[in-house]
């Protein structure tokens, strides 16, 4: 246990001094971007590992928060530097969590692979809606020139944004880890393992699952907000099927059934896409990512973290079972 804390401290120290040493592209284009992906990915690995629910809606939830921020900022006519932008950010966070609760209420009517189908439909449908709707979503073009809320002490620039992202990523990771060890987290795992038994013990299974969706949604919304602040724009292409599947791909690369799989996966995915542009050309990035994803699903579902754990401990990961259809069948029949 102490060794783990030492590792954590070393990693944190490295992350803290990193922007002082690395060139700007490596701070912004690699580290910050992969941390934003990691936050959205965390919400998926949380749902997958503790809830047994693989949702393809996490980018959609991030997108509702991003769109929410863009729409509210535009309607209120707020300019850069206005501290009210933080209130808007909070409102957008709530919009994202609310959207996640609604999606969750719909999704828990199904399990396993049906849940995957349903959330895929919701994700693609949201992108279609964003493309068609001009009243709020501004259609194909979406929103550009989205401003960031002012950081404390008037800090700005890529390094300040890197630290903001790092702090929020750590907060999300620590928060989800804490939740997974709380009463709620254990109840969620009990429901994942045997919904019927948990129900007969008096747990309200649907309510727990919906709450897990909402919680993961809040985390995804944090990622969505950081993304629009970083990019400065949001459009239907940001929430379309390609980026939606990229979130799944990076989580499977890192390990879908452990929280930190999202961290490892996001970094590996980002490095892969950055280097692939030089290696095979920008137009074949999806080909490469898709092939890596396919290879991993052919051999295991634990991804990189699973392989590492397997090599170092040789013990079976406790309580990290993938959702099985038998379980799904027993809970629906």
């Amino acid at each position, binding site marked *: 246990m102490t060794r783990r804390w030492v590792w954590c401290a070393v990693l944190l120290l490295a992350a803290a001094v990193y922007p002082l040493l690395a060139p700007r592209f490596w701070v912004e284009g690699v580290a910050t971007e992969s941390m934003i992906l990691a936050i959205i990915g965390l919400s998926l690995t949380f749902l997958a590992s503790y809830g047994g629910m*693989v949702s393809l809606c996490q980018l959609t939830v991030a997108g509702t928060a991003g769109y929410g921020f863009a729409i509210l900022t535009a309607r209120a006519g707020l300019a850069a530097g206005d501290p009210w932008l933080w209130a808007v950010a909070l409102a957008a966070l709530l919009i994202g969590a609310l959207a996640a609760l609604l999606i969750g209420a*719909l999704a828990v*009517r*199904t399990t*396993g*692979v*049906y849940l*995957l*189908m*349903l959330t*895929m*439909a*919701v994700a*693609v*449908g949201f*992108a*279609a*809606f964003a493309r*068609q*709707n*001009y*009243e709020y979503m501004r259609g194909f073009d979406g929103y550009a020139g989205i401003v960031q809320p002012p950081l404390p002490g008037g800090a700005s620039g890529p390094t300040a944004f890197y630290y903001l992202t790092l702090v929020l990523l750590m907060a999300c990771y620590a928060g989800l880890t804490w939740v997974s060890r709380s009463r709620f987290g254990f109840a969620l795992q009990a429901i994942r393992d045997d919904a019927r038994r948990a129900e007969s013990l008096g747990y309200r299974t649907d309510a727990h699952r919906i709450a897990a969706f909402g919680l993961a949604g809040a985390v995804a919304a944090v990622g969505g907000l950081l993304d629009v602040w970083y990019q400065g724009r949001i459009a239907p292409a940001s929430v*379309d*099927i*390609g980026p939606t*599947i990229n979130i*799944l*791909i990076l989580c*499977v690369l890192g390990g879908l059934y452990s929280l930190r799989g999202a961290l490892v996966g996001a970094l590996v995915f980002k490095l892969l896409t950055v280097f692939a542009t030089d290696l095979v050309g920008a*137009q*074949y*990035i*999806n*080909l490469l*990512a*898709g*092939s890596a*994803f*396919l290879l991993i*699903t*052919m*051999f295991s*579902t634990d991804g990189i973290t699973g392989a590492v754990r397997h090599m170092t401990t040789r013990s079976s990961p406790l309580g990290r079972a*993938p*959702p*099985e*259809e038998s379980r799904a*069948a027993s809970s*629906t*029949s």
Partner: protein
Amino acid sequence: MNEFLISVLNGLTVASLYFIAASGFALVFGFLRVVNMAHGAMFLLGGYIGYSAAHATGSWVLGVLAAFAGVALLAALLQLLILRRAREDIFREALMTIGIATIMADLMLSGWGGHTYQLEAPAWLDGSVQLPFIGRYSMLRLAAIALALGLGLAMWWALSTTRLGSLIRAGVDDQEMLGALGFNVRRMQTLVFACGAGIVAASGVIGATVLSISPGEDARYLLTSLIVVIVGGMGTIAGTALGALLVGLAEQLGLTYSPTYASTYTFVLLVMALAFRPQGLISRGTR
């Protein structure tokens, strides 16, 4: 009134397309329990192959056959080499098809580019006919409706009366038993997967003729097929037909009367179906 009738006819046209495409999806799902997320990509590939073959040979029918054969062959290979590795873990199979779809989308983009393709219909389907109350309506679109009706009836007939049909129904209900009776279930799985993919590919050619195809249509047809089978019910022809009808009508009526919210109407359908009948409107009872 006229506008309403035309939207209903348009709704029936897209419903026919959705039905043909979704029936391939439903067939594969019913027999193999594989949720084929590469469904949209296979639709698009079928359309592209059909377009290229029809242009090379000058025959629309040959285009449909080439698309069917090409994609069926590809699907058989994918099933044998990749999907079987999941050992019937249907969740992993679904993930695998997502990977396959990603790869296919990239390859198709580099093969056929980002253009929009529209295939010319055979000459005997060109032109329009005079209909009461509506005026002139495209012959081609009526033909698509007739084709979907014909295909639906043919599939219903084949599944309920022929030997192969009863084998498939037996496989949907209990594959272990079917295997114990001495039938080669694994070979049947490959065959059904290939046939399902072939039907999807053929519907891609029809889609390229009646409407048009371009990158992005794969996501659209995947979405509608998912909604069609969730709303209508998995693994029944009647359910697929009803789901396609509802989704097609909701989409086209929505496009006519409130274009910027058209896509929400299909979602209202989806939400209502899940809220009141999560097993689908017409289901086989047990699942």
